[in-house]
């Protein structure tokens, strides 16, 4: 299959200057908007595929958190690394994955990024620096930190961004990895997406003290940011990436955000753990797409028909990707034995 079909998300070149936001051409924010919308529409289709019984298993939608993945990946080079989580579609797309091969993977097809062997929670794409989504909470803390160690040893000036939910703060291995990252000044950025819930439990019930203190305790530079504002995320990530690339060591980026949907597609009755009002407030008041769109409009960078044009093209692209995946063949039975050992 062609490596970069039409649906690959555009990644504008990251700005190098320190006056980060000012230096980003306004047009670029349109590309950012397009990326975020692509993730949104991608996830809507995932939801739809599942409801129609076309997608095996479950999936964890990223809707509501798009600004985090896109803002961070904007600040990365194509050869920089990311690791992702069970809620990983947004990270993969933002780092450059093509929607069609993503869908193919979600449907267990041979054209998928992992030839159907990984599925929603294990999409990996070394060509875009994606070392893999991970179904173990905090399971990639070590991997991302090790990629940073490797980058440092190889002198490649690559950076690794490690995405995880605030639930990962419960896992000891995160602290083990952060300790080493700080000790050895590794070029890794821990991107903690605090979407308020560990599955069905509010973080306040599982997290003692201040989240930001956890990384600060390891002398890791720690920044809190509004995860619904992609420009804020980008600025913070850009600074972190610069630090990392210049040998300044790790950063912990605490992004406050919210998942608009359930923990996974099957999590429909949510009222026992969070109110409809809360959801409504975030959806209407803190939608990262709306926040960026409002800014673009206020700046005069985009007009209503720009948004319509973008939406049309994104929808066309994602729908084509879905069709591609639906009609793609499953792997041959013989593949089951392949790639156990390298």
């Amino acid at each position, binding site marked *: 299959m062609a490596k970069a079909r039409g649906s690959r998300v555009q990644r504008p070149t990251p700005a190098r200057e320190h006056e980060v936001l000012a230096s980003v051409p306004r047009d670029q924010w349109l590309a950012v908007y397009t990326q975020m919308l692509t993730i949104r529409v991608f996830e809507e289709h995932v939801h739809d595929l599942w409801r129609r019984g076309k997608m095996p*298993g479950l999936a964890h939608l990223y809707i509501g958190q798009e600004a985090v993945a896109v803002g961070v990946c904007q600040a990365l080079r194509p050869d920089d690394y990311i690791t992702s989580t069970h809620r990983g579609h947004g990270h993969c797309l933002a780092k450059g994955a093509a929607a069609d091969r993503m869908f193919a993977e979600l449907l267990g097809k041979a054209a998928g990024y992992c030839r159907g*062997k990984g599925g929603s*929670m294990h999409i990996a794409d070394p060509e875009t620096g994606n070392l893999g989504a991970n179904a173990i909470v905090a399971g990639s803390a070590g991997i991302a930190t090790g990629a940073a160690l490797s980058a440092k040893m190889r002198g490649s000036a690559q950076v690794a961004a490690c995405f995880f939910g605030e639930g990962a703060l419960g896992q*000891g291995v995160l602290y083990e990895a952060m300790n080493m990252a700080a000790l050895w000044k590794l070029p890794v950025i821990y991107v903690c997406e605090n979407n308020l819930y560990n599955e*069905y439990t509010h973080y306040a019930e599982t997290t003692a003290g201040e989240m930001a203190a956890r990384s600060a305790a390891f002398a890791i530079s720690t920044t809190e940011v509004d995860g619904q504002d992609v420009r804020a995320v980008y600025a913070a990530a850009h600074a972190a990436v610069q630090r990392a690339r210049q040998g300044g060591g790790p950063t912990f980026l605490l992004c406050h955000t919210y998942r608009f949907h359930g923990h996974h597609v099957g999590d429909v009755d949510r009222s026992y753990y969070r109110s409809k009002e809360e959801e409504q407030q975030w959806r209407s008041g803190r939608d990262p797409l709306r926040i960026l769109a409002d800014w673009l409009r206020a700046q005069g960078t985009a007009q209503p028909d720009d948004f319509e044009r973008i939406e049309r093209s994104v929808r066309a692209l994602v729908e084509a990707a879905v069709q591609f995946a639906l009609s793609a063949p499953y792997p041959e039975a013989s593949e089951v034995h392949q790639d156990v050992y390298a």
Partner: protein
Amino acid sequence: MSMPETAATPPATGAVREITFGQAIREALAEEMRRDPRVFIIGEDVAEAGTPFKVLSGLVEEFGRERVIDSPISEAGITGLATGAAMTGMRPVVDIMFGDFLTLAMDQIANQAAKVHYMSGGKLKVPLVVRTTLGATRRSAAQHSQSLHAWVSHVPGLKVALPSTPYDAKGLLKSAIRDDSPVVFFEDKMMYTMRGGVPAEEYTIPLGVAEVKRPGGDITIVATSSMVHVALAAAEALAAEGISAEVVDPRTTMPLDTETIIESARKTGRAMVVDEGYERYGVTAEIAAVIAEGAFQYLDAPVRRLGAMHVPIPFSPVLEDLTVPTPETVAATARALCGRA
């Protein structure tokens, strides 16, 4: 594998209801928590959520958040806390959502809980139950589909239960909670909605006693957990061809009821072992070795093993379904063993 809707009925001595495997688990917990104030539950999303499988729904309402404790995502930590609580007068039941996450708690389970009693010269006890899941074919991919019971079965000091029916689930879980040793209790995710007869009155099933789930004379199929139903389906198919298969369910791998297993193999002269853990260095190896030694003089054919394929479990349904034993592969193996290939 798709589960049959109804499991074999238990030896009924009074009123028997049809309930699901998940309900049986919940009943066992509720009854033991009512009976013994020292019993409590700790795990991720166990309270209001009642676990992602909804197995514990309703317990927090009856027993409160002090005894049904929602924890951080800390498998090692909660197993460690539970071990300490067990050593000091409580009887915790830890919920490890997916058996794959045992990897994170292995130090607490194998180096702490399993060894404390022995290392202390018998002075400290660890009446701990770790409930967790096993089983593939749920389209959950390599990190959410494993059956890692061989690991814990290997470790002296641990007991290991793998119920295959609602009846066994309830009776074994009650025994596990009352046991003064740590017990790792595996529930097949795919069985939670399977229905089966469970007596209304109280009962327990001792750990270490196998059950012949279907008697037969031509071949012994030892099967664990949901593989019992795969074996029963195979036995049904084989019966139509004139092969009478005896299905033996060990119910616990530690202690292992070697006597019942060997006796069956001696009787039939042919044996195979079916288990959903990885085949190599797995539970099938131990049981096959036990049979091969114990029934050596009686065997007309080598003991055959069917476990999960030696691959990480793939996501794609077309691949995943190839990796675990099915009624067809079990029947085919049995046929071959009986010289009817």
